[in-house]
């Protein structure tokens, strides 16, 4: 992709139309690279600039293509297939008439999807999906590196910290620690050698804010790190990024090389006395390495085991030197704050949660993607106004935030404000920005089990309570979902959960019980149904459900029988088929292939009756 890196420079040569294809990794998974290549051929010889960007936010409409004319507005086409390219070129680019049936967003007219963008407040994402992430000039053309210039030329390090403190910015990695305070600790720590670390481990499995920012606007994160380095007196930075994000790593490397070349990294930046270098460290697949002391051990090339604090990283971090660790999104906020002032930033948000927050909306949501909203917005507003409601047409059941450390918020509390304190009050957390929308087909016991399975295998094993306790919790959850739950199991889960929290050294163990405790708190009846009625109300837990052919509806076509991987379905053509319950692996394939809705799932009492037949 490097070869296109300079394409924005064509701006100067009389080009009036720009075609911009969203090439973040999710877009590529949806087929955007093929679309880009098709445009490349189709636009040959035309005075049109073809470029690419990262994430435009509307994942649900990928592949996304934006056509921007200097005088004709912005039009974003959604779900673009290579076959549609010729018509877009012909009618819109050459003919001047946008194909409105395919346009999902425009600054000229209001599309049905317009609320998705218009209800957001974009600070961090402002240039995501706009700039070319592999071209520093593109970032410079939107005011890039102006913030570090301002800091170096007109602010002392203390003033930078003061500005960040005034903004009220709190860490976006989960804990919400005030960023200005963290920097000033590191600044005040004695010693000349200090480090800035960017935490790009993005451990929450189901979240992609940091990936998107890094793939879409890597320079904004580098600039944030530079400003942090200047503020605390550090000359070196590390970016610790998970290896599962190869495209983000690639774009970061390109960005670092270009910044070095242009003198925004390296020694005597912008002819000042400030020098700064950034190195990349790839994670190796351990969730606990998102925890700061474990991360430091991993940067040092060791096993990523957390250690007791104090000393805090600000006193003794990587190589025993004062170190300040911040999340990707935290850094991405910094240039904006320096340029626009802390007061402008603190105008967004609530009393104790300033600014905006980026969320990765996924699950049963109509408009899944990346959204940035002001703090204080309610969950309902995110789900319905921005997200367009549920994709399945089913009812909202719960919203999960904070991943394995977070909690499930029931639909009845969806009018809760999204800010650090309100979420904490109801047992959930802000987290790093994963937001999963669950409809009523989701089994909450299964969700708790899913997270426990994850955290159990990710516990580093140092503390007994975390190591043994997570195993124990998982065992109980497994027996409940297997139909072997006992009276008293719910209380046991609660008690064990509290003990693990109290006896754990690091945040992983301390928050491990959250998914269990919040699902018990808000969905206790579901646990009870599993334990006492041997029923899974959502019909998810395999041990508690049966697949059955509805004799009245079955046409005897035999399709299910051919597809069934275990040979559990038999019957004679044109007669109702039957499922052998002993052989059935409950994979659900038969339901998805039956064209006559003749297969049903039963649980609990209902199921007993079926089995009895």
């Amino acid at each position, binding site marked *: 992709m490097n070869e296109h890196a300079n394409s924005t420079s064509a701006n100067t040569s009389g080009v009036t139309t720009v075609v911009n294809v969203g090439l973040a*990794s999710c877009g590529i*998974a949806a087929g955007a690279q093929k679309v880009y290549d098709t445009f490349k051929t189709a636009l040959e010889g035309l005075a049109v600039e073809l470029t690419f960007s990262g994430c435009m936010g509307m994942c649900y409409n990928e592949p996304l293509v934006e056509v921007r004319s200097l005088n004709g507005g912005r039009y974003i086409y959604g779900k673009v297939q290579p076959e549609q390219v010729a018509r877009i070129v012909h009618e819109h680019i050459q003919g001047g008439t946008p194909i409105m049936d395919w346009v999902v967003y425009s600054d000229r007219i209001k599309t049905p999807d317009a609320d998705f963008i218009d209800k957001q407040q974009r600070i961090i994402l402002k240039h995501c999906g706009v700039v070319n992430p592999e071209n520093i000039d593109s970032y410079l053309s939107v005011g890039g590196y102006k913030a570090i210039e301002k800091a170096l030329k007109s602010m002392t390090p203390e003033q930078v910290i003061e500005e960040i403190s005034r903004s009220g910015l709190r860490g976006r990695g989960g804990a919400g620690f005030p960023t200005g305070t963290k920097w000033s600790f590191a600044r005040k720590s004695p010693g000349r050698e200090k480090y800035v670390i960017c935490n790009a481990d993005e451990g929450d499995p*189901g979240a992609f804010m940091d990936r998107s920012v890094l793939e879409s606007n890597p320079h904004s994160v580098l600039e944030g790190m530079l400003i942090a380095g200047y503020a605390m007196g550090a000359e070196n930075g590390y970016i610790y990024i998970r290896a599962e994000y190869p495209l983000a790593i690639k774009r970061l490397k390109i960005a670092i090389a270009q910044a070095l070349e242009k003198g925004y990294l390296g020694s005597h930046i912008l002819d000042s006395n400030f020098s700064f270098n950034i190195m990349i460290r*790839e994670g*190796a697949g351990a969730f606990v390495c998102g925890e700061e002391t474990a991360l430091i051990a991993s940067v040092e090339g060791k*096993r990523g085991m957390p250690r007791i604090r104090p000393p805090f990283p600000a006193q003794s971090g990587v190589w025993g030197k004062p170190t300040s660790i911040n999340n990707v999104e935290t850094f991405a906020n910094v240039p904006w704050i320096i340029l626009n002032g802390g007061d402008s930033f603190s105008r967004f948000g609530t009393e104790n949660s300033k600014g905006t927050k980026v969320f990765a909306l996924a699950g049963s949501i109509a408009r899944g993607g990346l959204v940035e909203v002001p703090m204080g917005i309610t969950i309902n507003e995110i789900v319905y106004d921005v997200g367009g409601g549920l994709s399945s047409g089913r009812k909202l059941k719960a919203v999960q935030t904070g991943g394995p450390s977070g909690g499930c918020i029931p639909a009845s509390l969806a009018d809760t404000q999204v800010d650090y304190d309100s979420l904490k009050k109801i047992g959930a957390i802000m987290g790093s920005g994963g937001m999963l929308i669950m409809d009523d087909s989701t089994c909450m016991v299964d969700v708790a089990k899913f997270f426990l399975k994850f955290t159990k295998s990710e516990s*580093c094993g140092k503390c007994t309570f975390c190591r043994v306790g997570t195993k124990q919790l998982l065992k109980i959850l497994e027996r409940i979902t297997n139909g072997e739950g006992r009276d008293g199991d719910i209380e046991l889960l609660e008690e064990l959960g509290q003990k693990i929290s109290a006896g754990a050294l690091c945040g992983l163990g301390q928050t491990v019980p959250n998914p269990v405790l919040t699902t018990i708190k808000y969905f206790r009846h579901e646990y009870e149904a599993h334990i006492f009625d041997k029923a899974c109300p959502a019909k998810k837990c395999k041990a508690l459900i049966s697949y059955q052919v509805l004799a009245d509806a079955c046409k005897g076509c035999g399709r299910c029988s051919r597809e069934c991987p275990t040979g559990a379905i038999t019957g004679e053509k044109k007669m109702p088929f039957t499922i052998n319950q002993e052989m059935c692996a409950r994979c659900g394939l038969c339901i998805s292939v039956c064209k006559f809705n003749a297969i049903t799932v039963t649980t609990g009492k209902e199921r007993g009756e079926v089995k009895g037949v």
Partner: protein
Amino acid sequence: MSNPDSLKFSAENFDAIDQIVNKYNSDKGAAIMILQQVQATYGYIGQSMLERISQLTGIPTSELFSIVTFYSQFRLEPLGENFIQVCHGTACHLAGAERISEAVQHVTEAKPGHTSPDGKFTLEHVACLGCCSHGPIMTLNNETFARMTPEKVKKMLKQKVEDKGFVEQSQSQSRLTEGRELSE
């Protein structure tokens, strides 16, 4: 790097290891980086490779081994001809990742974290590839596939089961290899 022959002779041919260690050993705390590069080159990390790295770096084999077993990225078995990752992140779990994984296991006979007996498939479970709105997500030899269904799995893999698999071998060194190659 992507020459299939280099895979075949990997156990005896340590030239690449020597080069990697030379390149990174001057960095402080390079052990993980060296191991990552070795795996990117050979597809896995074998006992003899650990010993070679230990000789060159002076880091005890036992310490290297404890790193390799701590981090789930490292593979101690050679990679099959086709490399499959099924995402088991939260979004994909809710979207039915379990069924995708079952379908893969059914067709390939590879167990999660292992290679199939015929050496054709390696199946890995991963936690989130960052494409959560398109789940369930699966990758096959570097390419990411969105909105998978058991039917799609069957169709995609049936073909590979019947394939001789030589073409795929060169591509099967995982996306990590690609990430590095492209960026250096």
